[in-house]
């Protein structure tokens, strides 16, 4: 979609008023792919921030590292004293750990999913930002996979969930949704890490050829002897295609399985047939918002206005609006059916959310996830303004974390017999571990941004080669060779 399609007709500059030079200038300002620059210049733009350790780097690593350390120390304490240090109780036995798991794995799944989907659909604005999306996946899935382990009463026995041969011939229970969940999470961890790595190989080779010192050694390991021969490119394209299709298939199934942890129980509020697509929609929604946050931060901190432009924010913003509407729809579905049914326990769940002790979280979630995106993202001016997009995306992250928190803890506090209605309040342990996980993801980005190139440079160069300005009559249009 070009810009002129989005603008109102009266705003569109008429072609006759502009000379060809002026038009070309305008197109180059707007679109990365027609604003081709020499390879040397592009390489420098990507590799220079990678080599430069700024003043803020070590303090940032220190603070984030400290937060991550508190996470591990708290986990150690929890293993020593056991789960009693959390705010769990007799009724609400799943809590913020599981909410964090669902939330982070949602972001993780969406990252690679979006990269894969946009690649298969051949949408050109993906080119510079797909590495950010893929790396987001890798860090989020590692952080999220630790939460179910931290949640276990006996963490050190986690391997009993794995089907390994043992003398007593004990196997995990394949009827349990947790085993499906474990299988799904581990397969997604493997696929998305490989997907990220395959994409990285040509850029690692580029870094190997252009930097010096220990980064050269590291990147030459990562590049696996990439020489850029025709056969290697062909293999890379085939591998990317296979992984893209695979991830498109795996991602919805993984998050559906995550939703089965809840939907397969008979707990009121959880036992819902719409949870599968609802969770998938929520996952993609939070993922798009997370990619926007990461892209804006990289644009600002690395001065990458060349790579990440208004067109990228605009494309991501339209995507965000779309996923927001899909989420609204599924949320409505999940709400209206129990409400209309008026089954006493399910009605009680909804009342507790809307008017009981969940009301602050509930209305905050509605505002952040449905109302604010709906009343802002229709406007291009909002979508292309980075402070607005940053604020909206952070609000959406908060809203989606609250959504998972509500589903896990507030629903679980309403049980069949009123004697067992309970209230959960997080204690320090959960809060420290949650902030630690976020710090882990940010720290991953901070550290990795100094190790590997963060723009998918070969894709940008390919796009700049393929997309040219063509003159038709008095106007210039962008045309793409296939």
């Amino acid at each position, binding site marked *: 979609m070009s810009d002129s399609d989005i603008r109102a007709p009266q705003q569109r500059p008429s072609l006759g008023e502009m000379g060809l030079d002026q038009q070309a200038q305008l197109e180059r300002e707007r679109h990365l792919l027609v604003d081709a620059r020499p390879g040397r210049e592009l390489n420098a733009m990507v590799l220079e921030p990678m080599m430069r350790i700024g003043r803020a780097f070590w303090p940032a690593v220190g603070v984030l590292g400290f937060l991550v350390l508190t996470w591990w120390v708290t986990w150690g304490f929890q293993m020593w*004293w*056991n*789960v*009693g240090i959390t*705010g*769990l*109780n*007799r*009724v609400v*036995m*799943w809590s913020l750990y599981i909410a964090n798991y669902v939330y982070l794995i949602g972001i993780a799944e969406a990252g690679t999913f979006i990269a894969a989907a946009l690649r298969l659909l051949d949408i050109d604005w993906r080119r510079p930002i797909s590495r950010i999306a893929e790396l987001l996946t890798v860090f989020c899935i590692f952080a999220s996979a630790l939460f179910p382990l931290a*949640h*276990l*009463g*006996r963490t050190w*026995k*986690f391997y*009993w*969930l794995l089907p390994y041969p043992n003398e007593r011939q*004990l*196997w*995990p*229970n394949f*009827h*349990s*949704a*947790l*085993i499906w969940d*474990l299988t799904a999470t581990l397969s997604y961890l493997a696929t998305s890490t490989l997907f990220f790595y395959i994409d990285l190989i040509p850029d690692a080779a580029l870094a190997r050829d252009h930097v010096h010192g220990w980064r050269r050694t590291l990147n030459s390991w990562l590049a696996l002897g990439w020489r850029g021969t025709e056969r290697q490119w062909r293999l890379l394209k085939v591998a990317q295609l296979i992984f893209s299709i695979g991830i498109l298939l795996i991602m919805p199934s993984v998050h559906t399985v995550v939703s089965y*942890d809840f939907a*397969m*129980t*008979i*707990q009121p509020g*959880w036992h819902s047939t719409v949870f599968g697509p609802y969770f998938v929609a929520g996952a993609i929604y939070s993922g798009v918002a997370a990619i926007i946050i990461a892209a804006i931060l990289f644009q600002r901190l690395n001065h990458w206005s060349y790579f990440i432009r208004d067109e990228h924010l605009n494309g991501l913003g339209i995507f965000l609006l779309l996923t927001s509407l899909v989420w609204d729809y599924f949320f409505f579905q999940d709400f209206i059916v129990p409400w209309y049914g008026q089954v006493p326990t399910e009605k009680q769940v909804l009342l507790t959310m809307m008017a009981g002790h969940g009301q602050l979280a509930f209305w905050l979630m509605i505002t952040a996830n449905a109302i604010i995106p709906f009343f802002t993202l229709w406007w291009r001016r909002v979508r292309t303004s980075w402070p607005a997009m940053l604020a909206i995306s952070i609000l959406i992250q908060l809203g989606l974390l609250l959504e998972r928190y509500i589903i896990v803890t507030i629903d*679980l506090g309403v*049980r*069949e*017999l*009123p*004697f*067992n209605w*309970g*209230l959960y309040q997080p204690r320090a342990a959960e809060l420290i571990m949650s902030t630690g996980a976020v710090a882990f993801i940010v720290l991953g980005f901070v550290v990795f941004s100094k190790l590997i190139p963060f723009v998918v440079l070969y894709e940008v160069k390919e796009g700049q080669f393929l997309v040219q300005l063509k003159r038709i009559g008095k106007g210039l249009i962008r045309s793409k060779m296939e």
Partner: protein
Amino acid sequence: MADATQAEHKWTMVVDLDKCTGCQACVVACHAENNVPIRNKSEVQANRAQHWIRIERYWVGDPPARARFLPMLCQHCNRAPCEPVCPVYASVHSQREHLNLQVYNRCVGTRYCNNNCPYVVRYFNFYDPYFPAPLTEQLNPDVTVRTAGIMEKCTFCIQRINRAEQQARSEGRDLGPDEVIPACVQTCPPSALLFGDLWNPESRVAKALADNPRALRVLEHLGTEPAIYYLKGGKSYVRF
């Protein structure tokens, strides 16, 4: 002698709500029999009280309201929701006793079983159990003391079931109709609790349930097929 994996008895409990006075003697007896740890005040305030059998109190009517009591313990469901969700088979159905069992040393503490238990009768050991000095002298040697991080719940005093069965076998006779008595049933002053083999028509539970219009099972609409029947007359007011 029948196949060892084949159930010979259908252990069943009958709770007469009209007789229950809410005295909590069953709770104390269960703590003593099954080494159930006694949690301190702050833990109880954090809603972590741990009793394998508990007396749920409901208020009925306008003030001055009347208290009604519902003794709640593991229902030993025939189709238990806690069983399929356990990833490590710690929550299992015993073929021989027809009971729902918790394998303590297999449990890793996912706590999924409690989420899926509509009766919320499974208890998690948030901390290691602690028995103040004289209590250690009365720990039951037939029952394990459970460690922190695992789930536990009522077993229908399976140690008593096994002891009675072994006794009968060593004497070369069949188990008598009312030979097995769990601690809570043994101690109930108004005999509100009865226990026995439903398949033996001579047992007290079979007699109590024979064509009894007062019999019902809690949350029966969920299809869990509990092994505990409640008897409720006109005045007990406890509704399910």
